């Protein structure tokens, strides 16, 4: 691919990254004519003292007294509506989201309802339903993986229909993303691992899915390289602040990349497993990424092979024959997952059957797989996958991912030519 026939790239989030980035927030909010922000966060973030870190950083210049900390792991539209209600009650004029993907998406949703009016987020579902500029939104990620600070989509669950809804518009993009290593310093190793693998998945899928373009590619390749070089170092030494800042940057780059090139079957399955079994997004991503690469290999193997360079370095890339590179990419990612599994004392699952809840009970049981496969048809990510992905195909991938076996490439339905991007 030199240039695709058409592409669309938009990345207008201001990014502030550095050891003291939080201190810049008051001045930047002032420039956006915002003075009374609502903090949207979750109880875990408050408990870890991260809201206090932000408060201390902006002390004297900005008062952060309005806090909504009721966001659950898998946020739904009712939570969004509640946050918007509080925004109006407290007469706020902007939102600061402090947290991971769920918090950021909730803040995006709340910003839609608070800015545009109405009682419920459901009125704005779909593509381009948000048609004008929203109130200022500042995002401070506390995990290095979601990339949600750079995306034009808010993914919010509908518990009644058991699906994840997409709210897509350029106006949903936050105004400012603040990357400060203090915010990810206390992140436990298994969460650091799964969120970084989430960023890796964003970058890989952005690189081989149908809407890839030269700009998203450059973000994706750099993000893959940074995760590959820093993740294992940070897991070994959690106090490595440079490494943590690097991972936060990789996550943001991967976010910018996939926001403009979309994602495929890994996210399709990941969203569905998340909606049905409440599996954390990063965990599902790290497990399914090798399967996504394997499943699409016959359609875009050459492009997948190119990932080996940032992933494993120039020496491995040069030593590996061109036709063996896609396989090597999959092998390398499986090795990373195995290493992370050992380094986190088994808290980074490698297969779907290894995912357990707090009581040690299996979260994704084998009996749920057909329902998950069927529900993949209702997720928008299937559109951008290079190969067609129907329920029988999803079942094939799920069975292998559940057992932890490499995908049997002979069983993958092949009926199309190599992809021309």
């Amino acid at each position, binding site marked *: 691919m030199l240039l695709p026939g058409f592409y669309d790239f938009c990345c207008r989030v201001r990014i502030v990254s550095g050891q003291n980035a939080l201190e810049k927030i008051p001045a930047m909010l002032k420039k956006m004519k915002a003075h009374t922000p609502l903090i949207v966060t979750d109880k875990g973030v408050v408990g870890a003292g991260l809201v206090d870190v932000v408060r201390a950083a902006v002390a004297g210049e900005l008062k952060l007294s309005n806090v909504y900390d009721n966001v659950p792991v898998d946020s739904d539209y009712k939570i969004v509506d509640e946050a918007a209600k509080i925004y109006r009650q407290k007469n706020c004029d902007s939102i600061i989201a402090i947290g991971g993907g769920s918090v950021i998406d909730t803040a995006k949703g709340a910003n839609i309802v608070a800015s545009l009016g109405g009682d419920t987020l459901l009125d704005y579902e779909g593509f381009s339903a948000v048609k004008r500029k929203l109130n200022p939104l500042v995002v401070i990620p506390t995990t290095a993986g979601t990339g949600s600070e750079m995306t034009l989509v808010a993914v919010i669950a509908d518990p009644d229909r058991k699906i994840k809804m997409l709210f897509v518009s350029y106006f949903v993009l936050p105004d400012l993303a603040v990357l400060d290593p203090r915010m990810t310093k206390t992140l436990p190793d298994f969460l650091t691992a799964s969120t970084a693998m989430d960023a890796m998945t964003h970058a890989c899928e952005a690189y081989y899915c149908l809407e890839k373009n030269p700009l998203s590619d450059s973000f994706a390749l750099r993000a893959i390289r940074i995760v590959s070089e820093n993740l294992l170092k940070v897991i070994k030494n959690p106090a490595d602040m440079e490494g943590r800042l690097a991972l936060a940057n990789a996550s943001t780059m991967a976010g910018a990349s996939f926001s403009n090139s979309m994602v495929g079957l890994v996210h399709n399955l990941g969203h569905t497993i998340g909606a049905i079994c409440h599996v954390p997004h990063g965990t599902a991503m790290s497990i399914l990424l090798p399967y996504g690469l394997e499943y699409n290999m016959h359609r875009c193997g050459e492009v997948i092979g190119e990932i080996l360079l940032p992933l494993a370095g120039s020496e491995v890339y040069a030593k590996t024959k061109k036709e063996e590179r896609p396989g090597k990419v999959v092998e390398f990612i499986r090795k990373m997952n195995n290493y992370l599994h050992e380094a986190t004392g088994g808290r980074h699952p490698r297969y779907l059957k290894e995912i357990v809840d707090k009581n040690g009970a299996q979260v994704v049981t084998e009996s749920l797989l057909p329902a998950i496969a069927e529900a993949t048809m209702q997720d928008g990510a299937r559109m951008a996958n290079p190969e*067609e992905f129907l329920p029988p195909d999803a079942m094939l991938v799920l069975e292998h991912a559940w057992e932890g076996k490499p995908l049997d490439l002979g069983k993958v339905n092949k009926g199309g030519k190599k992809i021309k991007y």
Partner: protein
Amino acid sequence: MNINKYPQIRPGKKLSKRVYVAIMLWTVGKAIQVAAKVDKEVKEELARLPNNFTLRMMVAPEKAFPLFFYAKTLPAFVVDKGLLFYGIQMLLHKDKEGKIKYLGADPKGKKVDLNIVFKNIEAAWLVLSFQESTATAYMHDRFVVEGDLVHSLTFVRVLDIVEVFLLPKIIAKLAVKRYPKWSEMSPLRKFVKRVVIYIRAYTF
């Protein structure tokens, strides 16, 4: 140069493309109506849509079909009142009992739940002349979806199946992401349904 004598530039009407797209939309609409009756897979896919649901597929802008002057020369089925007044479009309705019906091209008085809008006639031409697959068109922003995204995914899947029924393999391969293998769709099913859909679409 006398600016008053400067000729006014009029946009091209692209009549042949408009007629082709209008016929294709009509064919697709009728074919989906028939396929929903005769094919189990299409029926199952459409079951995902709620009852009392109206879908519209159209070419922007509305009221853009310059057919008034040509109306008399065209076959009766193309000269739909809706086409003349509201532009190129087709409406499909799923009623209270779950039956799918093609409603022609007149949206007046109908509540549209899902609106799939090709941004212009060229975009519709690229897709409906199979120069671009549905997935590629989606990636290239050829159309806008207004309404529940999940329902548009169902429609795209139905469109893919119907295209496989209607078109010879060499063309259908351009329109869908993966042409179904024999294990996914038997040749017997494909050819029998193709004949049935064509006959019923053009006769009833």
